[in-house]
């Protein structure tokens, strides 16, 4: 059996800047093996010389997987210095992604904050490619400034297939959209909580208020899913750093049903308690 600690060598095929500090990389194993990721799963990327960090998969449509990375620490800084054709290591995919099978024939409400849209992007692609299998689909997306909205060109395209609602905390002069935290967008949507599944990813504080809002609206904990960010060092349920109430986020998450989290003994700030 292959040693799961050893990364597979992969090449940076391409990259594009999304915002001043965020870049989407296309990565492909040099062996030409496919990385079969599911929406919501993550991989560990090794930048040789610098170290390894977990990134959720932000695109799985084509052969190379896509990772949207914010420049934030040692590994991401080093990753930003690499160019086309450079080698990185990849382990994974790991974890449990969005519950695709539970979404069919349902209305879908997606709530994202900042870089939190990245793990939801493959899900949005999946929904758009199978549009007829879903009911109403709303995306509520907030970022600090208009410049920091991810996938700007795609948001436009998505809006032809699903309802895209945007807001920013700090507008720029040319911004014509809403201003405020993502929960203000709830007034733009008309949803039936009993037939809608809500899926969210964003900073803990955002998910905290979104989960509260959803419950106020009558969502049951069974119909709310969140992707938790924790320190996933090994990705394999061993190093213990990502556990929440003894549950390994890397194995049993990062996507959890709100009801599971509510059953936890240790408090999880993201579920609005």
């Amino acid at each position, binding site marked *: 059996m292959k040693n*799961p*600690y050893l990364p597979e*060598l992969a090449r940076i095929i391409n990259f594009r800047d999304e915002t001043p500090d965020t870049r989407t990389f296309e990565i492909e194993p040099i062996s030409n093996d496919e990385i079969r990721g599911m929406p919501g799963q993550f991989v560990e990327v090794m930048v040789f010389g610098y170290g390894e960090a977990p990134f959720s998969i932000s695109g799985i449509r084509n052969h190379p997987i896509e990772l949207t990375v914010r420049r934030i620490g040692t590994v991401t800084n080093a990753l930003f210095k690499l160019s086309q054709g450079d080698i990185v290591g990849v382990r994974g995919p790991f974890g449990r992604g969005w519950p695709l099978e539970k979404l069919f024939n349902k209305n879908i409400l997606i709530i994202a904050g900042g870089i939190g849209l990245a793990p939801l992007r493959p899900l949005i692609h999946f929904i758009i490619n199978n549009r007829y299998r879903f009911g109403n689909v709303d995306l509520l997306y907030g970022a600090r400034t208009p410049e920091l909205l991810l996938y700007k060109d795609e948001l436009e395209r998505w809006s032809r297939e699903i309802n895209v609602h945007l807001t920013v905390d700090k507008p720029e002069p040319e911004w014509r959209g809403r201003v405020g935290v993502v929960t203000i967008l709830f007034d733009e949507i008309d949803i039936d909580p009993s037939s809608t599944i809500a899926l969210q990813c964003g*900073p803990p504080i955002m998910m905290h208020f979104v989960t509260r809002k959803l419950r106020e609206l009558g969502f049951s904990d069974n119909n709310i899913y969140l992707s938790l960010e924790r320190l996933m060092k090994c990705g*394999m349920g*061993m*190093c*213990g*750093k990502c556990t929440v109430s*003894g549950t390994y986020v890397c194995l049993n998450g990062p996507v959890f049903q709100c009801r599971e989290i509510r059953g936890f003994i240790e408090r999880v700030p993201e579920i609005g308690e």
Partner: protein
Amino acid sequence: MSISGVKLLRSYLITKSNLYELLERISERNKLYAPLRHGDQVVLDLAKSINDILIDYIGHSTLPLKKILIPPREILYEYWIEKKSVTINDNLDKIASERIVIFGIRACDIKSIEILDKVFLREFHDPYYKKRRENTVIIGLTCVSPDKNCFCYFTRSGPEITSGYDLLLTKINEHYLVDVGSEKGESIIISNKELFSDATPESLEVKARIVKETIIKIKDKNDLPFFNEVYDQLVKRFDSREWKEISSLCLSCGKCNFVCPTCTCFDIIDEFDPIRNRGKRIRVWDSCHFLSFTRVASGEIFRKDRSSRIKQRIYHKIVYSVNDIGTISCTGCGRCIEVCPVGIDIREIVRNLAR
């Protein structure tokens, strides 16, 4: 891996001098780890001379058996970068040929192997652990001298143990009774036949009596609930005020994690030499008491409160482990009590919360 739980019923006797002879033979062909004296401490370490081995010591070694199976610092792989390519050298190859015999550990540590197996050999297999585990022979020793902090009886991990070892020795007067726990153990007997004689019925009776006496010794020092029966009470007391008191005492020094036979959390760090373009990925033990333990890239720390970190350790042992691997992961060795500079005592915590 021969942890199938097949219990071979044969037992033997060996004299003390033959036992030393056996250890001598073993040390010629294996890395023999055994309890040794280090200052005032007992440590489990490579035995350079058979005469240094402690057989009848009180309590347990400072660091538990995990230090051999998952060393405190271990290189996972090395790599070097040449132009646009990277070559990876798995360190697993280096440990592949190691043959390890661990002698003289007691029920609390033998029991810990079962728990380590459940963590390191489940959905994913940790190949480093697995390789060492496969290469390791366990020769346990029935504990007759629990110290003041020992409470294995209340975690149901000792002093009697019936699996998890290859051979188990019990001192019976001038002899040692040898229980065989695996095929590996049996093969040691077969290849050193002349050192053993068949066990007598009396020796088995003596062993049963010794175990009973040890239980009494432990019970005399402890008035405790069984740790596998306090799950519900602990869950209910998660927000108990007592945690605040305990956390005002705790130094967050992390010693309790390092000495625990079942604390397995680790970090992986990088070293790089930019002149030779060579790097290493190294696994090091980590502690859930350290503030940085849960820090993610964005800077968020999920267990900022000292009390949340203490609870992490205690609940992991008694509650989370049950959910995760189906058993409590405290083996009652008492090491965390022994080393705590401020006297935080898991027995007291459990006794109070279970009330």
